[in-house]
């Protein structure tokens, strides 16, 4: 009797598995310091930050930072940009990667299949810094490839870097291009998991390749699609900072159409040292995405608890 009670105790558990707990310690400490320790720092969103005062010595100013964020008109702008871009990214990349996965799965030559996948995966390996270099070389106004070509054809050169509207199409294009290898693999592995017998019997019944895709592959992919889309939805408040920042940088001409929360926070921290506003914006983003993840998970749980995140 005594022993069983002892077994439930905290200290007993710790001493019994002390080596195991010690093995967890490095990772535990890492997250304690780099993820949990900054959390009290959230209070600076409600403070008038001064360098001498630091986080805790500075004066409180209530909701002042949020009011500023709101009244500067940035709030609505970056929120809608963030959400719209991410929705477009999500839709475009889901559609394209399902298409690509189906195509690759139906391809006949094994060698060709591998080649196609290799080429699609390549952009994933390249950093956005490099991509932006290529991008600049193609679209640069003075001597970019595109404009050199246009000029030699006698057409007017286009200045992409001062034309916000074009970016609304270019950004999703680049997003899909860079991530396609990664996201199509997930669908491809789902397709590989489909029972081959159903294809064979469909073939015997005389179904064409399109009928097979439409009536077998796509319905079987549906659960995967739904899960990946839901996961994508939960990340909607966090933009693709790397991409936006490297492709656009601090180009003021484009800010209205391309500023997202992440770039706003980053810029006001690094360039204008506006701790108050950027931490207010950061907190706003964290809270919104927390709510989003929570509700998405709730929805997934309702739909099929196997797929819930936690």
């Amino acid at each position: 009797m005594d022993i069983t009670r002892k077994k439930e105790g905290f200290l007993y558990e710790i001493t019994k598995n002390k080596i195991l707990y010690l093995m967890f310690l490095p990772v535990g400490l890492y997250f304690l310091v780099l993820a949990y320790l900054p959390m009290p720092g959230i209070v600076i969103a409600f403070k008038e930050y001064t360098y001498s005062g630091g986080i805790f010595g500075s004066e409180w100013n209530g909701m002042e930072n949020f009011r500023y964020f709101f009244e500067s008109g940035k709030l609505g702008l970056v929120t809608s940009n963030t959400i719209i871009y991410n929705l477009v990214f999500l839709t475009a990349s889901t559609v394209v990667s399902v298409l690509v996965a189906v195509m690759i799965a139906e391809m006949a030559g094994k060698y060709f299949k591998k080649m196609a996948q290799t080429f699609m995966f390549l952009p994933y390996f390249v950093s956005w810094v490099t991509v932006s270099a290529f991008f600049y070389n193609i679209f640069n106004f003075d001597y970019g490839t595109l404009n050199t070509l246009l000029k030699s054809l006698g057409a007017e050169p286009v200045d992409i870097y001062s034309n916000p509207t074009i970016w609304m199409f270019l950004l999703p294009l680049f997003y899909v291009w860079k991530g396609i290898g990664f996201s199509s693999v997930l669908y491809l592995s789902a397709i590989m998991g489909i029972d081959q017998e159903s294809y064979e019997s469909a073939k015997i019944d005389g179904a064409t390749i399109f009928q097979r895709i439409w009536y077998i592959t796509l319905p079987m992919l549906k659960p995967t699609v739904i899960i990946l889309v839901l996961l994508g939805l939960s990340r909607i408040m966090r933009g693709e900072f790397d991409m936006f920042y490297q492709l656009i940088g601090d180009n003021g001409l484009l800010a209205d159409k391309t500023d997202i929360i992440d770039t706003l926070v980053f810029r006001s921290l690094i360039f204008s040292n506006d701790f108050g506003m950027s931490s207010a914006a950061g907190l706003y983003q964290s809270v919104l995405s927390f709510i989003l993840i929570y509700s998405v998970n709730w929805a997934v749980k309702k739909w099929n608890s196997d797929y819930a995140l936690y």
Partner: protein
Amino acid sequence: MLLSGSFESEESILRHGYSLIPRTFDLAAYKFIFNQPEKVLHSYGVTLFITVVGTILSLYFSSMAAYVLARKDVKYRNAMAFYLFFTTLFSAGLVPYFMLIANYLQLKNTITILLLSGMFNVFHILILRTYIANSVPDSISESAKIDGANDFSIFMKIILPLLKPALASIGLFVALGYWNDWYTATLFITDEKLFPLQYTLYKILSSSNFAKQLLAGNGAVSTIELPQQTVKLALTAVATGPIVLAYPFVQKYFVSGLTVGSVKG
């Protein structure tokens, strides 16, 4: 899709065609970089160091933690998993993080922060945990324990070797992250000696005067027109080359790694 497929060959076309400079000039750009190699070589060294050391440390401690989380006799394993997972749900945001690193931990301009910032990823740990739980039977640990091995040596001698496939693919993700990291340097590094490759590249791309600086710094007086644009491209190629070259060899691990992760990651 063919667009991305052709990108590789397009890249070299671009390099020659873009500024309408004869091909021989291209070599000049490379010569230019490697004549004054301090900056580039230095950042190469930094990047190589953080990639190798960071990946090894990350894999070692991640898998150790993952093993603990996978052991069913650890009573608080779910609490610990949630402790990790919570950090992906809610974060303090960039500003408090920045201030902690810069003002309180004094890690600005140290190689430590370059190593630390990307070291652990909760999802990698959870993927490893799933992998261990699915492919390493509990009885292995148990029988080793009966034979008198302690938990740490069980992990080192038995579990770690069994994890090789999972470690290979996760390691690739981690290494890729380190290699392509410019963001940490943007935030915390102002000392040129610690610039990683991608950040050097970024700096150079965003300042077109780089070539002149480089030359001026060496005391040489330049009257010739410098191949600024081609230097940028040559540098891009230098920074990207290793990844692209290594890519065909590691691709199969990468794909299998993704598949490991997708099984209820």
